[in-house]
């Protein structure tokens, strides 16, 4: 190639270089692995980045330290709970305005929760409100309003429960309890949350652009009641491919690299001289576990389950598959959760496991199935494979059964699913979020029949209503012993840290208390 040609080519190509979207601006650029579908939090149970930044809740769960949180006043500046634990009275902050300028009133709060329970909404997040008196009638369509929801005056909301529920306040701080404006939301109808024009909240950011499968652009709410956010704009890009994600981050087209979306990059970033100082890591109030279907032989026998617990070398998995970034967990409650105390450590002892199998009538070992969902990330298949190899030493011949997610969920519902490994992170800071989800009668049915102990069912219902927090914590600790040690109903594995890598210009980036990828960016700054 002649020199002239080379020069021509070089200048031509250089001309193509495009300044990545607004680097110079006071904008934070983050990513999400799939489109969030909507900002309407009543219609989603997992995509919470938009709701957490566009809306506020009556009470907020604020991160106070690594893995620590506190409930702080949000749209409600104060509240009272009646002595019987049934009536909650919230006093709203005066002068809070929605993005469209409308003022927040008690009626908006009543409307928001009623909308969630209104069958016409077809909401998915209704679970958080089922303690409110009259919620069931509203859901069933036998009532036109919720009897437990009342606006006492312009700024006072009263919520009555059917039974005391200790975790109710924590639940109201979860994203699903975001507050909407009645007039706006009613007129937006089923389009609410789908476009900038049909989205309106009180939160620190305003939705300005929403391109499906591409990006969402949020802009600072200048009149935010807690004061304007530090960022001018927040860009959320949809990036499905993890290699692309890393390239985007390394070419400075993204400010935050969430290692949850690309866990195999962990050693690279932790080992890179350029990046290791930029890693932000925090514990996650979440637990990796094996849920065991007790309807399936040989797992109907507690001794076999116990043997399975003891046959897994959890520390090795943590070190090899997750680069040692986490801690072993031995109970139902992961560290960081309210009421947490360390549970009795589960010993890794394949010889003892083998004995237990023999006691259970399987002296020559036994065949078991482990469920693998094809569309889940490779970390799950890697875990299944390493566990398959580990438990062989104790005499388990583990088969890995691969299905797609839809088939798995269908099988889990009918009790046909095999033992499977997954992770659960706290939606709200209360043990009920773990115990009820997995070991209540209804929860255990959804989770693939991983508990079959009527006394545990009953105790979990009792614990929900207890108002004496110390006694309640004690009950949860006792239940942990019963579920994990006695029944061996599940296999706690470990909790992982959640690590992010951020560009040097990003300041005040704090891993949220629960370790979620979805968080509020209100306090984050860029230089």
């Amino acid at each position, binding site marked *: 190639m002649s020199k002239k040609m080379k020069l021509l080519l070089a200048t031509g*190509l*250089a001309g*193509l*270089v*495009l300044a*990545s*979207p607004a680097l110079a601006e006071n904008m934070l650029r983050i990513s999400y692995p*799939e*489109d969030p*579908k*909507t900002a309407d939090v009543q*219609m*989603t*149970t*997992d995509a919470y980045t938009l709701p957490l930044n566009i809306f506020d809740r009556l009470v907020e769960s604020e991160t106070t330290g690594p893995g620590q949180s506190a409930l702080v006043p949000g749209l409600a500046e104060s509240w009272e709970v009646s002595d019987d634990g049934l009536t909650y009275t919230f006093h709203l902050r005066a002068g809070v305005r929605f993005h469209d300028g409308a003022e927040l009133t008690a009626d908006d709060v009543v409307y928001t929760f009623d909308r969630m329970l209104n*069958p*016409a909404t*077809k*909401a*998915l997040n*209704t*679970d958080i409100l089922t303690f409110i008196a009259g919620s069931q009638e509203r*859901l069933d369509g036998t009532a036109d309003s919720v009897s437990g929801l009342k606006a006492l005056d312009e700024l006072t909301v009263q919520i009555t429960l059917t039974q005391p529920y200790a975790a109710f306040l924590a639940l109201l701080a979860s994203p699903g309890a975001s507050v909407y404006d009645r007039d706006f939301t009613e007129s937006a109808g*089923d389009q609410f949350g*789908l476009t900038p024009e049909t989205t309106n909240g009180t939160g620190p950011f305003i939705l300005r652009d929403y*391109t*499906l*499968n*591409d*990006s969402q652009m949020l802009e600072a709410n200048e009149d935010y009641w807690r004061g304007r956010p530090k960022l001018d704009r927040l860009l959320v*890009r*949809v*990036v*499905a*491919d993890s*290699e*692309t994600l890393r*390239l*985007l981050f*390394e*070419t400075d*087209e993204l400010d935050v690299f969430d290692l949850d979306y690309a866990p195999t990059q962990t050693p690279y970033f932790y080992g890179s001289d350029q990046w290791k100082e930029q890693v932000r890591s925090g514990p996650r109030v979440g637990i990796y576990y094996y849920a065991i279907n007790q309807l399936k032989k040989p797992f109907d026998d507690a001794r076999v389950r116990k043997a399975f617990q003891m046959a897994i070398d959890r520390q090795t998995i943590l070190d090899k598959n997750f680069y040692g970034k986490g801690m072993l967990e031995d109970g139902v409650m992961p560290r960081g959760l309210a009421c947490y105390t360390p549970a009795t450590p589960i010993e890794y002892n394949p010889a003892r496991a083998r004995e237990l199998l023999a006691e259970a009538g399987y002296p020559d070992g036994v065949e078991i199935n482990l469920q693998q969902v094809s*569309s889940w990330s490779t970390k799950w298949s890697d875990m299944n494979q390493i566990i398959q190899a580990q438990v062989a030493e104790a005499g388990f011949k583990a088969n890995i059964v691969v299905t*797609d*997610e*839809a*088939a798995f*969920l*269908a*099988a889990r*519902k009918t009790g046909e699913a095999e033992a499977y490994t*997954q992770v*659960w992170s706290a*939606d709200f800071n209360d043990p009920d979020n773990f115990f009820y989800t997995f070991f209540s009668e*209804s*929860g255990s*049915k*959804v989770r693939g029949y991983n508990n079959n102990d009527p006394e545990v069912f009953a105790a979990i219902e009792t614990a929900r209503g207890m108002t004496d927090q110390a006694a309640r914590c004690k009950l949860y600790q006792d239940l942990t012993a019963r579920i994990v040690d006695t029944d061996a109903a599940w296999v706690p594995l470990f909790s992982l840290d959640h690590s992010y890598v951020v560009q040097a210009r990003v300041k005040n980036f704090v891993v949220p208390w629960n370790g979620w990828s979805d968080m509020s960016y209100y306090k984050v700054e860029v230089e």
Partner: protein
Amino acid sequence: MLMFALRRILVSIPVLIGITLILFIMLNVVPGDPIALMMKEHASADVIERVRQQMHLDDPLITRYLSFLWDALHGDLGKSIKLNRPVTDLILKAFPNTLMLAVSAALVSWVVGIPVGILSAVRRDSFLDRFFMGFSLLGVSMPIFWSALLLQYVFAMKLRLLPVSGFYGWQYMILPAIVLGWSSAGVIARLMRSSLLEVMRLDYIRTARAKGLRETGVITRHALKNALIPVVTIMAIQVAGLLSGAVITEAIFSIPGVGRITVNAISSRDMPLLQGAVLFATVLVILGNLVADILYSVLDPRIRAQMRNET
């Protein structure tokens, strides 16, 4: 010609209906519940049951199919279960992106594939021929996710000349167009080469040469016209294929196109959206074939005569 086109379009209507019916049955045989998938680990049995009823997912299959068909005939493809937006909107909004990708990839493949094929044929068995054919074999056989990553690494990460991924201007189109175009350029180049070689053996080429025409004239004026016929057919079908979504390319380069929608719809068992996307792709492929046939007849008078006889 018009009659021929009209007839072909009419014939394709039962094809379309047949495809929707097959798809509808298949999707209902495959296990999986869109609501459960939407709620993932937060799924609770009560909520799933309730929302299923509210969305009429529990109605009998035949009722749902007929109401889909009735609405589709009125131009309404329904609403996506997961995205809660009208299917037609979703597809029409994603289509321009896919169209842009398809057209630029097609241009790359033609601009590269046709000249390369001609040169290889003319310089048959030379070093150039071997090099070009090796290069096109590489294009055909290299998986897109690999060539994409390679180009991203070199041009975006190392040289910092082009953006990695996204869709915010024409610069963002270059890498995906090259990646996608490269693989189809390989096909076109190889087809062009073999087709031209075949034509060059025919008598009328010998006659042209005997007349004393220069070699370039022989190729451009005589050989190429006939040699292009199979290439054009492939090109038209290729474009139709590209238009129904280049799934992997769209995912790697974060292009919000039809392919992404289709894949999401499959994995989330979003029936209305998938129906719409498949219907759309079917129409495109039928149209692509029609265009190929028409082009064929324009290029080849024998086919034209045959068509006249048929209609």
